[in-house]
C-alpha cells in the first residue's frame, strides 16, 4: 500500500458572526463602563464607609406592622397586584388571540395589535404609573391602570408566542361543529395552553407585586408612599422594616405560585 498523504478538508474558520459578536460585546462593555463612570475604587470605598442605610438594615424596625397606615398600605399593595394581574391577564388572552394568524387573519390588523403590544411593553411599569398619575392625578386608579397595561402586554407576548405553536386540530373540530368564538377558545384553545398561560399570569403577578410596592413612590398607591415617607426622614430602620416584611410576602407568594405551577403540569 502506498503511503500517500491524506489531505484534511479545509478547516472552516470560526464563523464570522461569532467573532463579530464577541468583539461587539467587548467594545460595548468598555464604552458603557466609561459612560457610567464605573470605578471599582468608588465601590469599595463607599461600601466600607459607615452609613445610615446599613445601620438601618442591621436594625430593622418591624413595628410598622402594627401601624394602621402601613398595614393598610400593605394590603393596598397586595390588592392592586391581584386586581391588576387578573384584569391584565384576562385581557391578554384575547389580545394574544388577536395577535395570531388563526385568530386574526387580517394582516394589518394583526400588525397593529402586535405593535401596540410591543409599545406598551417597552414602557416600564413605573413610567406608566407616572404617566397615569400625570393624566388622572394621584391615587390608586393610576396605579391599577399602570399594572393592568404593563402586565397585560407582558403576558400577551408570552401567550401569543405559545399560541403560535398549538395544535390546530381541536380548533378545526370546534369550527366544524359550529362553535362560536368564546366557546372555541374555551374548549379548544385554553385547555392546550392552560399550564403555560397560568405560568405566564403568575409571572405577571410577581412582576405586578414588585411594581405595586414602588408605585407609591410616584403617588400611585401602595406601600411605596410609606417607604418614601420614612426614607425622606432618614428613618432607615423603618424603611428596612417595611421592605423586609414585603420580602416575606413576595417570598410566600412565590412559593405558592411554584406549587401551583407544579400541580398544573
Amino acid at each position, binding site marked *: 500500500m502506498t503511503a500517500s498523504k491524506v489531505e484534511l478538508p479545509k478547516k472552516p474558520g470560526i464563523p464570522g458572526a461569532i467573532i463579530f459578536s464577541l468583539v461587539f460585546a467587548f467594545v460595548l462593555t468598555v464604552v458603557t463602563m466609561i459612560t457610567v463612570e464605573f470605578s471599582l475604587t468608588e465601590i469599595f470605598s463607599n461600601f466600607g464607609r459607615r452609613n445610615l442605610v446599613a445601620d438601618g438594615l442591621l436594625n430593622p424596625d418591624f413595628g410598622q406592622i402594627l401601624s394602621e397606615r402601613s398595614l393598610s398600605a400593605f394590603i393596598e399593595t397586595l390588592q392592586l397586584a391581584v386586581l391588576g394581574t387578573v384584569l391584565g391577564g384576562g385581557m391578554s388572552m384575547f389580545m394574544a388571540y388577536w395577535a395570531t394568524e388563526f385568530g386574526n387573519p387580517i394582516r394589518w390588523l394583526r400588525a397593529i395589535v402586535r405593535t401596540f403590544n410591543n409599545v406598551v411593553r417597552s414602557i416600564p411599569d413605573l413610567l406608566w404609573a407616572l404617566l397615569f398619575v400625570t393624566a388622572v392625578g394621584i391615587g390608586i386608579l393610576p396605579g391599577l391602570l399602570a399594572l393592568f397595561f404593563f402586565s397585560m402586554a407582558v403576558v400577551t407576548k408570552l401567550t401569543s408566542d405559545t399560541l403560535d405553536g398549538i395544535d390546530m*386540530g381541536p380548533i378545526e*373540530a370546534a369550527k*366544524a*361543529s359550529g*362553535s362560536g368564538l368564546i*366557546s372555541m377558545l374555551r374548549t379548544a384553545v385554553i385547555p392546550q395552553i392552560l399550564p403555560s398561560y397560568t405560568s405566564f399570569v403568575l409571572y405577571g403577578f410577581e412582576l405586578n407585586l414588585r411594581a405595586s410596592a414602588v408605585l407609591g413612590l410616584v403617588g400611585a398607591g401602595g406601600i411605596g408612599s410609606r417607604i418614601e415617607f420614612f426614607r425622606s426622614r432618614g428613618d432607615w430602620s423603618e424603611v428596612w422594616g417595611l421592605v423586609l416584611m414585603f420580602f416575606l410576602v413576595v417570598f410566600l407568594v412565590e412559593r405558592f405560585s411554584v406549587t401551583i405551577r407544579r400541580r398544573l403540569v
Partner: protein
Amino acid sequence: MISFKNATVEYQPGVKAMDNLNLEIKEGEFVVVVGLSGAGKSTLIRTINNLVPLTSGELYVDGEAVHDLSRKKMRALRSRIGMIFQGFNLVDRATVLQNVLMGRVFKLPTWRTVFGVYPKADQQIAAKALDRVGMLDRAYSRATDLSGGQRQRVGIARALAQEPKVILADEPVASLDPPTSHAVMQHLQKINQDLGITTIVNLHFLDLATAYGERVIGLREGKLVFDGPGSECTEEVFEGIYGRSLTAEDTLSEEA
C-alpha cells in the same frame, strides 16, 4: 339531503380541486369516497360544511344553500353536521367526557361552556354517545392516555353528541391498524343503520371501500369518475379511478 350542482373549487387559478361536480346524496345513505391523494376527496368533504368554500356552483345541504349562507346560519348548519378527522383532533389535556361535550357547545349558552357547567340532559346525550362507541367507562380518562382507536371512537362520540343529520369522516382510519380500522368502520356503519344519519367517508384503503361502501364515489383530478355500489368495485374499476395499477399500499390487509 346533499346536492352538488356544477360545483367547482379552485384553490389557485388553473388548479381545480373540485371540477364541475354534480352529485346527489339521499338521506340515510352510507357513501365512501375514493381517489388518489389530491384527487379532491378532502375538498369534497370540507365543502359540505363550508370549511372550504365553493369557487362557483351550488351546494345544498339539509335544505340550506351552503354557497350563500350567513355566518350565523353556517354555524347552525355545522352544528347539524358531525365531523371525524384523521388526526382525531381531540383536546389532549381534556377528559374524554369534556371532549365529547364539545359537540353540545352550539346548542348551549356560552356561559355554560365557559364555566364547564353542562345540564344533565346534555350530559346524558354525551353519555349515550360514549356508550354507543363503548367508551363510557373511560369518561374521565385524559385523551392523551388513549390508544389511536380509542381516540377515534371518542371523536365519533363527539360527532354523535351533536345529534347530527350528517356525519363526515375524513380518512378516519388512515392512522390506525387493520383490526382497529375495521372496528371503527363498523361503528360508523352501525350508527348509519341504527340512526339513519347520512354518512360520507373518505378512504384510501380500497378493500375497506369495497367492504363498507354501500355506494362508492370515485374522484380523479376533482372530477366524478365513478358512482356505484361497492359490490361493483373490482380491481379494474379502481384502476380506472386511480388511473394507474394498484399497489400493496392501496389495501389495508390481506384478510378483510
